[in-house]
């Protein structure tokens, strides 16, 4: 798996379009949020929650979907499956670099948020929800990949879920509306956004914060089940 992961990092770095999507776009958005934080209420939790959703959406969801579609289209997956490595090792090798890269980016950006504002009261809870959001977007990428024929198509097929997740995050953080809590929590990443904002300010206790991982993990589970149904290693002819 490590051999594939190393090659994948190399490919990611050398493919300027994917590298830009995975690194520059989320980082640009992060800088924008930090610079304009006062317009978003100024709270570190709000900025952090938005950044986690946007960066994981771009860096994991869109990038992983695009990467997998590209590797399938060029028959690299078929070639890798012609070797001794197991399927899980192949997928792991392709996806681990995407996730690791994204987590590193998040750490840098969240450190910048802390440096320019306040430290989260329940930092561990933020970390738990980062992991949940990463898992959700990874599973959603696997499911969306099943519906995506080419890397170009990935730019379109990922949009509905990405916009839904971003919309939910903005609805919760920017409007502060609490009239539709059940609906907000049921949207992809919605519950985690609520938990991250609360964990940062200390208004959401640990137990409640942990329970809020459940809707996010439920999205991951549903996406995984869909991915299993839609899964294919080779392009459809």
């Amino acid at each position, binding site marked *: 798996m490590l*051999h*594939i992961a190393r*090659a994948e990092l*190399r*490919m990611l770095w*050398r*493919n300027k379009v994917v590298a830009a999507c995975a690194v520059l776009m989320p980082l640009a958005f992060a800088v924008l949020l930090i610079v304009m934080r006062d317009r978003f209420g100024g709270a570190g939790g709000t900025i952090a929650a938005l950044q986690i959703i946007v960066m994981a959406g771009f860096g994991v969801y869109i990038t992983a979907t695009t990467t997998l579609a590209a*590797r399938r289209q*060029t*028959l*690299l*997956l*078929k*070639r*890798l*499956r*012609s*070797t*001794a*490595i*197991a399927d899980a*090792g192949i997928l792991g090798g392709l996806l681990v670099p995407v996730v690791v890269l994204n987590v590193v980016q998040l750490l840098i950006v969240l450190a910048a948020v802390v440096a320019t504002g306040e430290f989260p009261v329940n930092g561990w809870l933020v970390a738990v929800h980062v992991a949940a959001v990463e898992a959700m977007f990874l599973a959603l990428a696997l499911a969306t990949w099943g519906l995506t024929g080419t890397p170009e198509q990935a730019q379109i097929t990922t949009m509905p879920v990405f916009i839904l997740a971003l919309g939910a995050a903005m609805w919760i953080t920017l409007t502060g509306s609490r009239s539709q809590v059940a609906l907000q929590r049921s949207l992809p990443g919605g519950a985690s956004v609520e938990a991250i904002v609360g964990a940062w300010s200390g208004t959401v206790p640990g137990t409640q914060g942990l329970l809020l991982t459940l809707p996010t993990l439920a999205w991951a589970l549903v996406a995984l089940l869909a991915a299993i149904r839609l899964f294919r290693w*080779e392009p459809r002819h």
Partner: protein
Amino acid sequence: MSDPAAVPIHVDRLTCRYGEFTAVDDLTFTVERGEIYALLGTNGAGKTTTLEALEGHRIPTSGSVRVLAASPTDRGRVRPRMGVMLQESGFAAELTAEESVDLIGAISGRMDDSARLLDRVGLAGKRRTRVAQLSGGERRRLDFATAIYGSPELVFLDEPTTALDPAARDHLWEVVMQLREAGTTILMTTHYLEEAEQYADRIGLMHAGRLEHEGSLAELVAAFPAHIEFRADPGSRELPGSFERHGADLFSLQTRSPQEDLLRLLRWAEAEGVGLGGLRCTPSSLTEIFRGLERHPEPVVRVGGRS
């Protein structure tokens, strides 16, 4: 039928269907250790599907395939002992030739030296060239390099010389023959009949998913009729045999006993005083047998062979 445990490739009544379409229909054959077996066939005959079933990429609808005495889907057991050259390249455009061989080699379960291997397939000067910049023929050679990485016991070559120039083709066959001398078993598909004639120990001819003929080149050719042809004006005289007439004066005969038929024809011509223009007798050839596949689908003919 050979013992599945004793032969590198054992295919027994393999059938692969895609929905209503039957790509491979009740296919049975074996490949012996150290043998080069060429699977030939018309377009869509089912060669690649057969190969993919043997490589573990396709699950058979029915029947069984055994590779190196194991299921081809048992990757941990089988893949370190077999190399695969796919019909299409399947490399990452962003990696260099050497990085591509390193990657596939590292997860092949075998050990080798990538630089030496690239040199062996004539790509020494392209080690640091990205796959995107390689020509079609160079990518085929790269593909071949990954298939023979670590000198596996069994190698699958799916149309290995497509897109190669004649010199590169000769070089590839040189390497294949070296592998064979070292005891490697090779199953290949090709559209170049002359390659099968020259290099294969046995040939399987597929058409519409079925194995129509199988045997060594000599056995296949001997099993099919020779062709006698001549021009004559016999008038009202009766010809010495069931010759077919084509147009005004062209006659032909498909025969399994060309010597006797030819002698009888010559005696008749002399006795009747008939001149035979353009007389020729040609033995059957792989090309003729191949062309006959679509014209006259026949039940499977197994001649000699080891299955």
